[in-house]
């Protein structure tokens, strides 16, 4: 099943028998991989399978416990990310790594700015080169604006631009598309194809399996840190790939059961936050899953934040179970039975230096109390329950969450909020970075919650997910609600039409 190494060109970069452990966790076990010029190679696997660890080993961030990295057939030892970069390897990490205080242009060219005489930086040339990259990616980000405040999607774009600017022989991308919508993904793939034609080797990770079939020629699968297979994509079916990743067949994705909607649980009335969104009104009933769709930057997240009380609203109001919420007070929203799973898990969802147990416990500080003190036993059992229910992969419940893989971190965020037993659950990109298997579980879970009478508002950039799960689809465009489409009429076309501002279907 491996690549025919006697035919065609030699691999630019290869891993041979790599192993890597973190304490008791064996993240990689004897993994081998070959990257060839002119080829896009996919790396697939469940959350925590070891994909990011593999990439960090290639990039010189981690040093392998055993095994070799081969560059042009020669063994190399990277002492740090700088060495890998000098060897022509560009990496996009799973989590954006920008300098918030510096401009986009500086972020892209940090350490390699074009120079003038005496080693001075050529600011003009840096600006021009950045503008050129942005054009290539088809986005209009001002090279001079600081990176602080960029949405996750825009941050990801800057990361992509940075990687492209290297003109690297090897381009490694760890879930670059997780935060992007279709148009940006299409652009990115266009650029990747060009690079491939120019002879670059590309390593690509995504939990959106269709993307693998769209752009990759080879796919390597990992399971529990071990190599499972490497084979050509052509002729493979999605189910085959899933089976290799998960080790079994999967249930149906999007298993939304039909539930008779109950009374209104969440009512948003003419909500306005000046300059961000205007006059947004909608209801979510018990037992209902309402999808909220829109392009990146349409203001969906902002609405969710305001409803939950993170940001203040300027006009309008929110009711949960018939009771009006206080403006800008998440604690009262929580008390009323509202929960919000935020989109940025590292910044908003988790305290990275805290244990899994305490992170899940954080939302229960008010409820798991005995005589005014934290009830540790209750806290632990509550955390364990939910960590198990969501199949979080961890060594010890007292480990800090920053030792978890990206997808497992996302599960902890879900656990943290589901543990509050909410009446109304708002989820913002709940399955970002989650593998197919877990995604199905999350969907089943949301659906069960709905069946139990929870009102769910689901924000997602993954349109099939919305179409599959939602009883109704709300669509936002430039800060306004432009359409409300019942499940029966919701199609890609009708939603897109509303999302792009063309008259709703």
């Amino acid at each position, binding site marked *: 099943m491996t690549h025919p190494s006697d035919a065609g060109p030699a691999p630019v970069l290869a891993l041979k028998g790599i192993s890597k452990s973190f304490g008791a966790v064996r993240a990689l076990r004897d993994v081998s991989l070959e990257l060839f010029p002119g080829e896009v190679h996919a790396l697939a696997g469940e959350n925590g399978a070891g994909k990011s660890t593999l990439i960090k080993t290639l*990039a010189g*961030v981690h040093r392998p416990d055993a095994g070799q990295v081969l560059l042009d057939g020669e063994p190399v030892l990277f002492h*740090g*990310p*700088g*060495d890998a*970069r*000098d060897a022509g390897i560009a990496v996009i*990490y799973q989590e954006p*790594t*920008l*300098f*918030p*205080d*510096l401009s986009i242009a*500086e972020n892209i060219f*940090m*350490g390699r*700015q074009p120079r003038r005489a005496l*080693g*001075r*930086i050529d*600011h003009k040339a840096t600006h021009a080169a950045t503008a050129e990259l942005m054009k290539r990616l*088809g*986005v*209009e*980000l*001002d090279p*001079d*604006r*600081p990176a602080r405040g960029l949405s996750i999607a*825009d941050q990801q774009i800057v990361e992509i631009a940075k990687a492209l600017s290297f003109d690297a022989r090897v381009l490694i991308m760890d879930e670059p598309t997780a935060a*992007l*919508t*279709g*148009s*940006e*993904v*299409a*652009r990115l793939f266009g650029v990747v194809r060009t690079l491939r034609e120019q002879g670059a080797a590309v390593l690509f990770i995504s939990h*959106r399996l*269709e993307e693998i079939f769209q752009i990759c020629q080879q796919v390597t699968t990992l399971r529990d840190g071990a190599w499972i297979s490497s084979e050509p994509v052509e002729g493979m079916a999605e189910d085959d790939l899933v089976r290799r990743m998960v080790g079994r067949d999967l249930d149906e994705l999007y298993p939304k059961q039909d539930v008779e909607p109950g009374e209104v649980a969440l009512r948003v009335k003419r909500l306005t936050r000046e*300059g*961000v969104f205007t006059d947004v009104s909608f209801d979510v009933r018990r037992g209902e899953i309402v999808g909220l*769709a*829109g*392009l*990146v*930057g349409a203001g969906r997240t902002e609405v969710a934040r305001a409803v939950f009380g993170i940001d203040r609203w300027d006009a309008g109001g929110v009711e949960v179970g018939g009771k009006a919420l206080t403006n800008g007070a998440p604690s009262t929203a929580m008390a009323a039975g509202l929960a919000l799973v935020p989109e940025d898990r590292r910044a908003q969802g988790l305290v990275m230096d805290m244990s899994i147990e305490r992170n899940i416990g954080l939302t229960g500080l008010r409820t798991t109390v005995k005589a005014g003190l934290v009830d540790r036993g209750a806290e632990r059992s509550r955390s364990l329950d939910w960590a198990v229910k969501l199949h979080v992969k961890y060594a010890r419940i007292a480990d800090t969450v920053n030792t978890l893989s990206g997808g497992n971190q996302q599960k902890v965020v879900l656990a943290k909020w589901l543990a509050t037993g909410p009446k109304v659950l708002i989820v913002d990109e709940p399955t970002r970075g989650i593998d197919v298997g877990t995604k199905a579980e999350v969907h089943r879970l949301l659906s069960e919650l709905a069946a139990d009478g929870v009102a769910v508002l689901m924000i997602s*950039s*993954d*349109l*099939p997910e919305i179409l599959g799960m939602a009883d109704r689809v709300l669509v936002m465009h*430039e*800060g306004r609600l432009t359409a409300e489409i019942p499940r029966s009429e919701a199609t*890609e076309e009708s*939603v*897109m039409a509303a*999302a*792009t501002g063309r008259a709703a279907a």
Partner: protein
Amino acid sequence: MTVTAPNPAPAAEAPESSGTRLVDRVFKMRELAILVVFLVMIGITQAGNSEFLSEQGIKDLLLNATILVLVATGQSLVVITRNVDLSVGSTLGITAFATGDYLHSGGNAVIAILLAVLLGVGLGLVNGLLVSLGQVPALVVTLGTLYIIRGVDSIWVGSRQITAADLPGGFVDFGSGGLSAVPWLALIALGVLIVTAYYLKHFGSGRELYALGSNPEAARLAGIPVRKRILAAYTFCGGLAGLAGAMYLARFGNVDSGTGTGYELTVVSAVVVGGVVFTGGSGSVYGAALGALLLTSINSVLPALGVSSVWVLAINGILLILAIAVDRIVALRVATALKKRNARHA
């Protein structure tokens, strides 16, 4: 399979560019704001006391600020990297005495200044090594070295002191002389300031200081030699503290084992007032220098206006809070205004 937009360019981004430019201008204005506060303060004082801006008065103002400007410049480099050096006061004290001791025993003035800088560099290097190699919190380490250097200084110096009489006349005259109202010391400080600012803006390693203060983890991933840069920042800071020590000696002609005690708070105040943020990655040395000028001038303005010394401390503190509060409020106002403007456009 995700939402696919038929028209590829996302719309919301277009107005950003004019917005950020304005933000940029406002950021530059932040330093301008301190300058304006400073000028207004000087203006009022001059109106109340015409002697204030006499040649002697200007000279005094500049001389008072010089030493703090130097140390604050060095400190801002360290603060930009998300660290801090609390030991500058002790460094200043020990270098000042060492310089005096050397001059007292008949040393050459130029070599003395070089020695002061070298001693400062050495102490900065120690701080830098502890912080960057040990990867430990700078606040604790430099609080430790603050005590250690001060203790060693007191043990070495004992009750000795250096007075103007012990120093070569030329050296002391240099400390107070200058081109009409502009003292030599102020010219040196200005030179250092301009070179540092130019370096920070136009050289790769200068920008990397901002980068690693802004996001240390990302800096490591970007292959920036983090430890080396931090070491360099501390060394530079130490060197400037050393130079400031030599200048202190020339200016006051009087040092003992207590010289520079408590200076760290003044320096940190100057840097903060000047808009250099403690979480690293932003701020400029010009801001820090203006902060230093503002702080030292308050101490000249109040006596010149005849405010009783009893009130000076309280007024000082309140002005400090006002300065940062006004700065913050203006920045917030502008940010919201910009945001709303952008959004309306979209």
